[in-house]
């Protein structure tokens, strides 16, 4: 079984880039670590020019925050650190809005719960707008090959 998993792991693309029209997730390096020990995951995002994502802490309760979660069956999430959001004033907003724009990264710390060659799955929930319209909220899967021992 382990050999079969190892073959799958080798055949797995070195990265999986989840993407849609405006947001791309840059290649993620395969993970390696020991069960119960902390490992770091850097999730790099590239947002198309002219668009913004609500930050993880938007000021307006109706706005949909940026969220990143990891499969709780596979890892224990110790922390998810977002960069400092920008306060931007848009044509449609009376007050500056807390947003992320351009290229930025989210730093996660997790502890593997299991051992073996696996694919760690994360879910990124976001909602993007430009200066005069908004796209529906989306949740996309992030898949990273991992060798946990």
């Amino acid at each position, binding site marked *: 079984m382990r050999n079969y998993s190892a073959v799958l792991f080798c055949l797995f693309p070195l990265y999986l880039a989840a993407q849609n029209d405006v947001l791309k997730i840059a290649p993620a390096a395969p993970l390696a670590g020991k069960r119960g020990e902390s490992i770091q995951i850097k999730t790099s995002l590239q947002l198309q020019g002219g668009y913004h994502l609500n930050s993880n802490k938007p000021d307006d309760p*109706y706005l949909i925050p940026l969220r990143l979660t990891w499969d709780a069956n596979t890892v224990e999430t110790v922390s998810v650190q977002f960069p400092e959001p920008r306060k931007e004033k848009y044509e449609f907003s009376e007050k500056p*809005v807390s947003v992320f724009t351009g290229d930025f990264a989210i730093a996660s710390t997790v502890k593997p719960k299991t051992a073996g060659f696996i694919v760690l799955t994360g879910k990124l929930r976001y909602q993007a707008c430009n200066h*005069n319209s*908004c796209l529906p*909220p989306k949740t996309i899967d992030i898949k990273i090959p991992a060798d946990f021992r």
Partner: protein
Amino acid sequence: MRYALLFAVLCLAGCVTAPESVRAAVKAETKRNPAPNFSLKDADGKVVKLSDYKGKVVLLNFWATWCGPCKIEIPWFIEFEQNYRDKGFAVLGVAMDEEGWAAVKPFVAARKVNYRMLIGDDMTAQMYGGVDSLPTSFLIDREGRTAATHIGLVSKKVYQDDIAQLLGGSVLPVPPVSGGAK
């Protein structure tokens, strides 16, 4: 005499030339297609069909509570509903929130929305071309045909011009709304 003739020509040109926004937005009657007839529920659970509004000019607005630009338009639509209702005009809001009324009811109550609100679904959105971004609004004429489409936030004047044209020029000027009219 020469100047009088020039003046007359300019006046005539002014009379036959519609404002830019109107020419750009409202289609000629011969180019309008029937608006898809949806069936959605309002806040009271009553089924509402577009065909119920035949004979009226309808502003059909797809929006969501999480959409910042959509919030700018809502006070305009409240005003349009109030001022033009008696002239055969209605606004229909179609909220695309996944949480449905749980999100929409408190939002519209806080803003005292005076027009009919419906909860949208994917099927209705697909009928209207997918509605990939919000706000997206359609101006529907008295015969139930799509006369104009606006994707994204446009100015209040564009809507006013559309409505005026579709109501047959029977719209009185609306005083500007504070904090948003462009």
